[in-house]
């Protein structure tokens, strides 16, 4: 089986710092140019039928990557199966809609509040339920997702089944206005948020919370015995994931200018979980790849509209059977210490040297 992740990691290991920085900058620049990627004749294939390619990049692609990264903290990093992630997305979106239409706050001011409310919901849900394990947690989170949707659906003061129309667009930054005519600008905002989340997750992973999550994921009993305050770190993982979902919700609401309960169904939770597992749980790049494919692919094949979901389901089954750990699975051992890494590097270099001299001797 071809191992893309190891190949990529190898390449990365071999580069020095300046090469790495240059590569990252080029990649980021490339991502920012993505909205214009469909404009050339030879990249026409990227264009999606029906909805415009630039709009697709914001929702679903960008939103799904963002949410998948948030869910990855919960499911991939700390191994808590959350089937109600859409609830946090909904809380963020409704915060934006309610505050945006009823107060004079603008979206940039609402964004942290939406994240805060989602986080609060995560903590409130987490304190009683994170004592549960495995599939019990899964069903309770599923229930939470449904409760939020049904509660919104049945509360007429926030629009009930009609939702809330007229959510304001964010005020412009640097003369770039945000509205339905300029999806590329929204895409750039989403990319900035995605980059921030990636940076945050990478920082957290190698520090105390990340190590605690890894311990909880591998064996919770052992983690408790080793003195990890598991409940506290599980709540942290839950609420950070929730905050990311809430942020996605705020941006979503202000881009679509409308929120309605039927957007926030259980299927969205399932789809985001699929993105995480399909791409490779716990591995950021795997999750990004998985979310990109699973959100873009159904839009690209919209011309077979009726059979679209069927093809999607088949693709899930086939891919999971061929690559059960996802497209880009995580490394088996993630946290080597600095000395160990140096030692491994030295050993590898020595091996290379030995091989070289060996082949030279054979000649």
């Amino acid at each position, binding site marked *: 089986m071809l191992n893309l992740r190891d190949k990529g990691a190898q390449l990365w290991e071999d580069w020095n710092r300046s090469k790495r920085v240059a590569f990252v900058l080029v990649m980021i620049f490339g991502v920012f140019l993505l909205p214009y990627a469909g404009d050339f004749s030879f990249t026409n294939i990227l264009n999606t039928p029906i909805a415009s390619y630039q709009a697709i990049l914001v929702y679903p692609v960008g939103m799904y990557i963002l949410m998948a990264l948030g869910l990855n903290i919960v499911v991939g990093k700390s191994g808590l199966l959350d089937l109600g992630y859409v609830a946090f997305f909904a809380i963020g979106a409704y915060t934006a809609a309610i505050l945006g239409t009823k107060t004079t706050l603008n979206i940039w001011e609402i964004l942290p509040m939406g994240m805060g409310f989602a986080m609060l919901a995560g903590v409130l849900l987490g304190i009683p339920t994170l004592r549960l394990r495995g599939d019990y947690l899964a069903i309770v989170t599923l229930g939470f997702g449904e409760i939020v949707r049904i509660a919104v659906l049945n509360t007429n003061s926030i629009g009930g089944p009609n939702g809330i129309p007229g959510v304001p667009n964010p005020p412009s930054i640097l003369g770039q206005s945000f509205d339905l005519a300029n999806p590329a600008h929204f895409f750039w905002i989403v990319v900035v948020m995605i980059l921030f989340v990636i940076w945050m997750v990478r920082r957290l992973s190698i520090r105390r919370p990340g190590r605690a999550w890894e311990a909880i994921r591998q064996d919770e009993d052992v983690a408790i015995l080793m003195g990890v305050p598991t409940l506290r770190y599980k709540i942290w993982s839950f609420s950070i994931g929730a905050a990311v979902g809430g942020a996605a919700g705020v941006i979503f609401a202000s881009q679509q200018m409308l929120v309605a309960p039927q957007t926030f169904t259980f299927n969205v939770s399932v789809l985001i979980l699929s993105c995480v597992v399909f791409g490779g749980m716990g591995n950021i790049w795997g999750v990004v790849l998985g979310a990109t494919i699973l959100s873009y692919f159904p839009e690209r094949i919209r011309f077979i509209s009726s059979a679209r979901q069927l093809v*999607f*389901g088949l693709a*899930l089954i086939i891919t999971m*059977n061929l690559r059960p*750990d996802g497209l880009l699975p995580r490394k088996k051992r993630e946290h080597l210490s600095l000395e160990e890494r140096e030692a491994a590097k030295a050993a590898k270099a020595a091996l290379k040297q030995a091989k070289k001299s060996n082949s030279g001797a054979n000649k």
Partner: protein
Amino acid sequence: MNFSVVQSQFFPLLINGLALGFIYVLISVGYTMVYGVLRLINFANSEIFMLGTFATIIVSRTVFKFDINSQPSHGMKLLIVLLCCLLASMLTSGVVAVLVEIVAYRRLRSRGTNRLGSLISAIGTSIVLSEGVRLLTHSLPESSPRVLSKFYIFTIHGVGLRIDQFLVIISGALFFFAVDRFVKLTRIGKAIRAVSMSEENSRLMGINLNRVISITFLVGGLVTGAAAFLYETVYETTVFNVGFNLGIAAFTAAVLGGIGNLRGAFYGGLTLGLAEEFFSAVLGTQWKEVTVFVVLVLVLLVRPNGLFGEAIQQSRV
């Protein structure tokens, strides 16, 4: 809030709740058996149920030529029609369940991968089945012809017991009893229990793992098919996503009772059925699901492994 309705309508609500509860019991048996053996939420179970309901309708329409206008039948013919529909539904669901296991789970299991991989495969299977039926039925609901005339068996003080509800309660209890005895008493049932305790050890004891797992899926599917038939006799309609809400409710019931435990599925299913009926009478039907999940959370807070959770290893599937 309307508490007086509970007082005035207590017995009708009780009967409706029991009928719904027994349907939940049978579906959650499907979930709980698979969970007991594989530690896996069989997401496709709701579609296995859905295919059972369609099988019931197809048999009554094509084989026995029932349509919307035809009169309900009586006597021997009624018995034959009902039995044939039941058999068709059970067989369809059972066969589909076994096929789902082979297509979606077996290869992943043999490679010893994480459970979430199987979960996504299960979700994929569920999407394929429900979307396939959606395309075939053009997203339209199908109503099943009335085979059984719905008369009241008896009425006391204005409270009646309808024949279809009676049928559901009796046969639901019978089916559950049969599965329970099957798992407790037969040799294969013993093997199923052994696998659910430890896959590794039961393999060492010479149990053919794949065969036992197939049989578990078959039994779970058969019972789910029976539930589908009973659902059709009471509600007489189906649609491609009929299994979705019922499946979630049944899985909740299984968790409520303590998943992986057959008796748990029984009590969980009945509790949930009754809770749904009474809560929707008091609070209005739109809050039905919310209250159900609130009950679930409250129960899990007090008993984190469900009412009859995994602590009782012996009584597990």
